[in-house]
């Protein structure tokens, strides 16, 4: 048993003698394809400035296009802000004829006599005796229902007395005046007013002020009596006074006024735009700002319209209200109304002018039923501003003007090349397109190429005089044609026969400098011109180079952005396998750069991407396959810091010093393979 126990202890000790565990790790050699692609020179055209044309023999022609001029003439029709103000005073204040009446009944007269109702009962027959001064009295006439006070420029007041009493009256004297005033407005003096008869007295109200609280006083009125005849006593018989205010022309008043127009104005806004004569404008941006100021103590409704501005057949018009002004003060309102998209007739109300916008405005007061003060001294002050109109297009004579401009255009495509280029053939066209509805003379006064070495001027007879470019034509707007304009075109061709253009391009210019003079409407004879926003006169430089060239040691450089994270990547290589049908050798060098452009790693290959073999016709007969190896050591850190990879590609056409033609079906199949030592654990 003891021996068994000993054996157990030994086993325990053996099993406890464990190796200190250290995680195993090792390096392993991995190979993996990373990327593949097929390159065709046509695929390189990711720039709108370059394209390739395939010629009849399947060879390629490089077309490089760069813009030389893009001259817009929008400034010609810049309609700057313009304002016009109008202070509109009330011409008239309308107020309708007003009638008020008052009655003195027989019953009230009898009641004022002692025992009158006993002596002269209603419905009885009696002889009315003669009385003096029985009717003398002052009684109010209330016209406040119609006005509180009115001051007249003109008008009349009729005082009408109708005797419906059963007896004649004599020596009737009557005055009408404002309450509590001594000055009478109308005085009536009637020697005899027979029963059933009416007497009228009219007075002018010119310069008068009439209060709503009127009073009439009967200074004297004698009852003639009916003796000896008895008459039926009817208490409702009356002496009726009627006051008619008519044909009035108010200076001011505090009254309930009827609806009435208070102004109706036409306004003409004329733009000063030199000798440009615009007949029609379609607005892209713009509007009308109206500032209204009123002293009228009532709501003014204003309608504003530009009859000549229409959108979908509807004229431009808007409404707004000026609230009541405070007593003794004024109220101001500012409004802006957009008329983008409107077409404006610039020929005025009668169609006989130019550069003019004709506007109409009306203001009125609605009958509000509220007593309001209105005076002919009240006014409405309108400021109308046509805010800067940016036309989408404009029609008319665009004026005669001369422009001189200089442009510089970067021309980096050839300047990126190192080495020598010998272009066997080149043609360069300066194509000018006129999108303006006016003819023009264009003169290229200078065309030069600039590089580090200096400047080389283009010499050609084509530059000795200006050329004329006719007016563009407008496409049918009803069809919403796009583009809306068909430009007129002019092309100047330069080749190695009529110019030194080949020398210009072989100098690998970095900048093209271009001076020109443009005279618009040189003959001042095109009234039916037009101009569209963002359309002007453009010139493009189009360089056509048949891809038959001999290139030696041409170096292309490009830098791409990259962001890769890898760990534990040690020595190894990249392999670039290329299957090439281009008759061009290429040496490719890659440089890893950090974010500041500092070199992290240079990847060079001793191998060359070999050109294809060509037959007697210079066309590829046998493609070649090349493997370019780019060895590296401990590249993980460099790749992790790498933000850019700079490629440098050195090209040589083969056979040397002999032009080779590039065909559209040439390709390079590329495959990038990584071979690296990777640490695993």
């Amino acid at each position, binding site marked *: 048993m003891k021996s068994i126990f000993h054996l157990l202890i030994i086993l325990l000790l053996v099993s406890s003698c464990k190796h200190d565990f*250290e995680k195993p790790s090792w390096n*392993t050699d991995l*190979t993996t394809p*990373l990327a593949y692609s097929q390159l065709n020179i046509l695929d390189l055209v990711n720039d709108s400035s370059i394209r390739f044309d395939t010629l009849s023999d399947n060879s390629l022609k490089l077309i490089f296009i760069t813009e030389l001029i893009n001259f817009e003439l929008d400034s010609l029709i810049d309609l700057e802000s313009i304002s016009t103000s109008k202070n509109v005073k009330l011409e008239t204040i309308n107020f309708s004829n007003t009638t008020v009446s008052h009655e003195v009944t027989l019953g009230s007269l009898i009641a004022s006599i002692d025992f009158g109702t006993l002596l002269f009962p209603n419905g009885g027959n009696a002889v009315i005796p003669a009385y003096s001064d029985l009717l003398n009295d002052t009684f109010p006439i209330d016209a406040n229902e119609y006005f509180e006070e009115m001051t007249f420029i003109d008008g009349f007041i009729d005082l009408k007395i109708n005797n419906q009493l059963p007896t004649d009256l004599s020596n009737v004297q009557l005055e009408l005046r404002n309450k509590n005033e001594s000055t009478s407005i109308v005085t009536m003096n009637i020697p005899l007013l027979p029963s059933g008869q009416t007497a009228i007295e009219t007075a002018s109200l010119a310069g008068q002020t009439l209060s709503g609280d009127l009073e009439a006083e009967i200074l004297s009125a004698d009852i003639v009596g009916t003796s000896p005849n008895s008459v039926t006593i009817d208490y409702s018989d009356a002496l009726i006074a009627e006051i008619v205010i008519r044909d009035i022309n108010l200076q001011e008043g505090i009254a309930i006024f009827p609806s009435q127009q208070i102004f109706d104005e036409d306004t003409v806004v004329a733009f000063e735009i030199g000798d440009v004569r615009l007949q029609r404008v379609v607005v892209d941006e713009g509007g009308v700002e109206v500032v209204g100021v009123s002293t009228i103590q009532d709501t003014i409704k204003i309608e504003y319209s530009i009859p000549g501005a229409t959108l979908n057949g509807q004229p431009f018009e808007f409404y707004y209200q000026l609230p009541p002004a405070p007593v003794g003060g004024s109220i101001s309102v500012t409004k802006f109304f957009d008329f983008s998209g409107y077409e404006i007739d610039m020929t005025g109300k009668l169609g006989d002018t130019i550069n003019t916008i004709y506007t109409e405005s009306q203001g009125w007061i609605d009958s509000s039923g509220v007593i309001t003060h209105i005076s002919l001294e009240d006014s409405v002050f309108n400021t109308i501003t046509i805010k800067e109109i940016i036309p989408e297009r404009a029609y008319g004579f665009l004026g005669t003007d001369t422009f001189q401009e200089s442009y510089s255009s970067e021309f980096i495509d050839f300047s990126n090349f190192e080495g020598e280029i010998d272009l066997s053939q080149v043609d360069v066209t300066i194509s000018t397109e006129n999108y303006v509805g006016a003819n023009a003379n264009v003169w290229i006064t200078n065309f030069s190429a600039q590089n580090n070495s200096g400047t080389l001027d283009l010499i050609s007879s084509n530059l000795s005089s200006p050329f004329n470019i006719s007016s563009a034509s407008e496409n049918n707007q009803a069809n919403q044609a796009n583009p809306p304009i068909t430009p007129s075109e002019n092309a100047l061709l330069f080749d190695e026969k009529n110019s030194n253009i080949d020398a210009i391009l072989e100098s690998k210019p970095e900048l093209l400098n271009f001076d020109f003079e443009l005279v618009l409407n040189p003959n001042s004879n095109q009234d039916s011109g037009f101009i569209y926003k963002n359309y002007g006169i453009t010139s493009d430089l189009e360089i056509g180079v048949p891809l038959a060239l001999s290139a030696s040691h041409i170096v292309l450089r490009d830098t791409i952005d990259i962001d890769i994270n890898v760990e534990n990547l040690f020595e190894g290589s990249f392999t670039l396998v290329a299957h090439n049908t281009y008759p061009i050798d290429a040496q490719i060098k890659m440089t890893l750069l950090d974010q500041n452009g500092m070199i992290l790693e240079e990847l060079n290959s001793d191998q060359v991407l070999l050109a294809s073999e060509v037959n007697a016709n210079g066309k590829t007969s046998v493609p070649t396959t090349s493997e370019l190896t780019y060895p590296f050591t401990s590249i993980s850190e460099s790749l992790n810091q790498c933000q850019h990879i700079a490629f440098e590609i050195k090209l040589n056409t083969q056979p040397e010093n002999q032009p080779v033609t590039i065909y559209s079906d040439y390709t390079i199949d590329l495959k990038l393979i990584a071979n690296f030592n990777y640490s695993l654990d």
Partner: protein
Amino acid sequence: MRLIIKICVLSCLVSIVSAQESSLQFNTNMGLFNSSINEPLLAQSYGFLDDIEKANIIDALQSENYIQFELDNQLKYQHKNGWSLALSNHAGLYAKYSKSLIELSLLGNTPFKGDSLQLAPLGLTAFHYSQIKASFQWDPHFSTSLSFIGGHQLATLQVENAMFYTEKSGANIAYGLEFEAHYSDTTDLLDNPFEWNGMGAALGFTFNDSIANGIYEISIQDIGFIKWNESTSNRYVDSQWSFDGVNVDDFIEFNDSIINNDVDSIKDLLNRETQDHYTWRLPTTINISTLQNINSNFVNAIQLSLTHKLTIYDLPRVTLEVIKNLKKHEFRLGYHTGGFERQGFQFGYAYKGKKTSIQLFTKQANSIIPSQNYGLHIGIGLKRVFSNSK
């Protein structure tokens, strides 16, 4: 479940045949084996592996290699009437892998450009379960057992096909992969390693008899299954993939995100799994042994055993032992081959007292010779007899 209990109880009650004695036993057995890497080489395989160490590892490998871990504990009560009841816990791991997989891992694919590497065989079976076993000896020669099993953890991987190809210039890499994998819920593995993730049952049969001057025994154990619960992850993958690099319109405008997209698509392919019940067949063990007594001064008996674990072993494990008894002490020295272990010696010692028996054994008797040591193993058995049969 009720049926299982009824059968157990019935088995216990029926006392047609009596056993010899009543006893309580405890058996434990723990081992870690591999078939190819010996102790010195394993000792070198820590830290950074240089080319020589990688070559040594590769040279040591067979075309097919195995790793095995087993841990078994059992407490058993044997009644003299013939029935017994045992509570046991079993953990096992059986893995096989190819030499080419290790070559690819250690050397990378660069040395194999132009080759198509077959990475199979590749497989893994790892399990952990507890078992209550009721046994009954129907007659002196034949006994049966019935077990109720609680499954704790399972992981299986069976790769039918795994091919990796690198084009001779490296312009293309490809693989073909077909495998089936299942693993039980492991979210609570460390906190609760005895969590029940499945249930099952198993049957066992044992037959023995005399033959000439010896005995033989045939037993079949663990004929059964565990049904793992609905949280079990199941993957069935059959895919081919070929990579020529990333096709970029603009050759120089690629970055790692483009490659990562491809890698992600592969991950998606491999990660397609479902969670559902999975019924796992227990690795049934077939054991055939014969013991022949020998009248010799040096050896008292020899025993030849054959053990086969279905679904695990490609070849059965065969053992030849010589047995020497010295009074109450028994010594066994054997040599084994097959199974998941490297062939080698094994040793056993048993003390057989009247009431108490102790057994110690190892399947890796080579452990004392480092160059021949391919694992560690120890087994202990303790037995106490309470009463003998009449």
